[in-house]
């Protein structure tokens, strides 16, 4: 490595950062110190201010008060370009790739090598070098929009690394990854830190903190609760308590298999999929019975998104059948599906479940708006009840859905979809991006609906969670079901069924 600060030297010093948005205090005097060679975890419940802090560091936002110093130089102009030049790269919570460009073109855009574009061969070679160096596989022959979420996340990371950034800031990079992918990512981070990078990583997964990070800062409602502590000095309980407050800490650390009455095999099949072929799916069959929760596990990119599209009626099966109570699903219009009792919790809530610029009360009615609507006041009163019931933190039913944090937006979707007793629930990553507390609430609600008779298909990324809720787990690999498992679940066997497909996953093709 070149001359410069030695391992452990402070490279980023943020002190007394304040940031308000209107009446919301996002950050209320937060310090953050990043050091060379260290991975610094930033934790906090949804809306705690983590993203805001990192956006300020990356020049995408500016603090109302407080100082930022990078490599000892005081930052006086908050500007993304300047931040990049000073060696800071941010991988944002939401993707910031240009979807129509290829992976290598995205890299070029981030780090132009001059006025003229190099040949595409040279670009590809450069990408290959990066892929080899960091072990993060990404395809280059398709536009980024055609990559799986995991691949996009890897590309985001490669792009940050390509900038030769000394300071890497990762905002919930593992939220969209499977456990295996998350482990791999952490390993890469470790290596980078060992190479002398300073890394800040936001995560909701405590395991990751204790497995791979050096220091931790925990925010709660914009206030620093734990500041710059060594991970080794803390227990899981300490961190969990700091995040969510003491009263609910227990739930967080010890989520266990909820005793679930094994459903009678004689119960009626509500959701029936037979030899379905669509997109990556090459002949998937599965049945979900009344009162049953079927988990779908697998490495991201093995057909989950096609399964979701199929079960939500977005695409018809190319062959085979998808039936709800014996009726072909694709023949039912959205509202008819709902009338059949189908609830759908999509993996991308902002695309498929919410109309963000519309009011929260409108969003609660989406899919079941009567021909002539109630007066506004009636609608809002009903919506307010529901928001309280589902603990959706908002400015009220007249606020727009766009103003909700990711977790509260998800709760809003659930409040709508799980209202009443749905017959069939298609739940895709229902706890993605939620803080542990919120995730727990949602798991509970789904279990209650299941106990009430709903047939639940749960596509998940975290194995622990799937183990906790599922009556059966199917592993999706390379577009097909590579294994069906009953409790007690055999982690090793499931891992094998999944890793089987690791060899054939898109990145390696």
């Amino acid at each position, binding site marked *: 490595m070149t001359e410069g600060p030695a391992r452990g030297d402070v490279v980023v010093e943020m002190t007394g950062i304040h940031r308000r948005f209107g009446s919301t205090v996002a950050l209320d005097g937060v310090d953050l110190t990043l050091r060379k060679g260290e991975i610094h975890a930033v934790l906090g419940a949804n809306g705690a201010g983590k993203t805001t802090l990192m956006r300020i560091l990356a020049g995408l936002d500016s603090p109302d008060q407080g100082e930022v110093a990078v490599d000892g130089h005081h930052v006086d102009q908050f500007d993304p370009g300047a931040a*990049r030049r000073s060696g800071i790269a941010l991988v944002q919570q939401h993707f910031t790739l*240009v979807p129509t460009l290829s992976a290598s073109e995205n890299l*070029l855009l981030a780090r*132009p090598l001059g006025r003229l*574009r190099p040949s595409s061969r040279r670009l590809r070679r450069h990408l290959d070098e990066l892929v080899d160096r960091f072990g993060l596989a990404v395809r280059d022959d398709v536009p980024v929009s055609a990559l799986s979420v995991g691949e996009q996340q890897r590309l985001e990371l490669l792009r940050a690394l390509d900038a030769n950034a000394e300071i890497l800031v990762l905002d919930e990079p593992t939220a969209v990854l499977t456990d295996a992918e998350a482990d791999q990512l952490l390993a890469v981070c470790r290596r980078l830190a060992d190479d002398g990078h300073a890394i800040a990583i936001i995560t909701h997964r405590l395991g990751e903190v204790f497995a791979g990070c050096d220091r931790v800062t925990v925010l709660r409602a914009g206030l620093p609760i734990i500041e710059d502590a060594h991970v080794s000095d803390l227990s899981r309980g300490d961190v969990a308590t700091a995040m969510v407050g003491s009263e609910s800490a227990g739930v967080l650390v010890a989520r266990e298999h909820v005793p679930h009455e094994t459903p009678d095999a004689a119960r009626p099949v509500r959701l029936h999929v037979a030899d379905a072929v669509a997109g990556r799916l090459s002949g998937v069959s599965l049945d979900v019975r009344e009162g049953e929760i079927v988990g779908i596990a697998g490495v991201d990119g093995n057909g989950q998104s096609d399964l979701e599209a199929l079960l939500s009626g977005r695409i018809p099966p190319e062959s085979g059948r998808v039936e709800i109570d014996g009726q072909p699903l694709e023949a039912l219009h959205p509202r008819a599906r709902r009338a059949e009792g189908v609830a759908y919790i999509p993996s991308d809530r902002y695309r498929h479940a919410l109309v963000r610029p519309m009011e929260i009360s409108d969003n609660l009615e989406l899919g079941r708006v009567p021909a002539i609507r109630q007066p506004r006041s009636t609608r809002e009163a009903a919506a307010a009840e529901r928001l309280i019931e589902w603990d959706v933190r908002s400015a009220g039913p007249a606020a727009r859905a766009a103003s909700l944090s990711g977790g509260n937006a998800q709760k809003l979707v659930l409040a709508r979809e799980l209202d009443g007793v749905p017959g069939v629930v298609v739940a895709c990553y229902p706890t993605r991006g939620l803080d542990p507390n919120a995730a727990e609430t949602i798991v509970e609600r789904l279990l209650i609906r299941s106990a009430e008779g709903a047939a639940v298909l749960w596509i998940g990324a975290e194995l622990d969670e799937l183990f906790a809720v599922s009556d059966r787990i199917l592993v999706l690999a390379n577009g097909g079901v590579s294994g069906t498992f009953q409790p007690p679940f055999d982690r090793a066997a499931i891992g094998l069924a999944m890793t089987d497909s690791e060899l054939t996953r898109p990145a390696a093709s």
Partner: protein
Amino acid sequence: MDNVLTLDTLTAALRLAIPVAVAALGALIAERSGVLNLGLEGMMLSGAFAAYSTAEATGSPWLGLVGGTVVGASVGLLLAAFVVVGRANQIVTGISFTLLAGFATALLFQQEYSIGGIPPRIDRIDLPALVALTIAGFAGVTWFLRRTTAGLALTAAGEAPEAVDALGYRVGVTRTAATAVSGAFAGLGGAMLVCGPLGLFIENVTAGRGWVALAIVVFAGWRPSLVMIGAFLFGLADAVQLRLQGTDTAIPYEVFIALPYIVTLIALVVRARASHTPAALGVPFVRGAV
């Protein structure tokens, strides 16, 4: 019928196509960057008038082209001030600019030239030179978009402005420049009409060619090569319909007049699935918005 598809028809198609093609290249640049330039027709007309007055005053049609380009670019810059910097609604502002240019050129033309007489003629530039210029423009745009980093950034600004911004590019500057260049091309297109095949100016001389250019960009799926082909096809449809009218036929002439538009419509349908609209087209960029 044998007089319909001849070399003459093809050169007629070229003459009809060139102003539209050049303006369409301009529309393409703006749209690739995310700005819907509905002021295109107005910029063409302003360019046409500027070219005419410059050529008339200096005696050189080539200076006319320069004048048209400069004025087109200025109008483009003004539009950018409203829609990029000011984030005003691109549809209304663009249409208003077109109307404004129509009124302004009419007023100036009337005041400068036409009271009590027929406006003077200007020297003309030959077709081969116009073709060469058009090809140069096409090559320049293609090269810029495909081979330069700035071209990549421009396209990206029309697809994912927030991503481009986060990488430290200036989305506003990129779009302003693109809109100005768009105006320059449109102005040049108008100038090439007046200093090329016509050698004169009359009110509303561009007669809707800017709108056709906008249609061609969509038809072309925002690809320069297809813009050229689309413009030529449109010119050909017009050249052919005018010649078909001369043949003995029982078909009402209105069918022929509508022919280029029917052809465009069919081409649009055939091509539609293949095109990809820039995702941020028409959406003002605000850092930090959703």
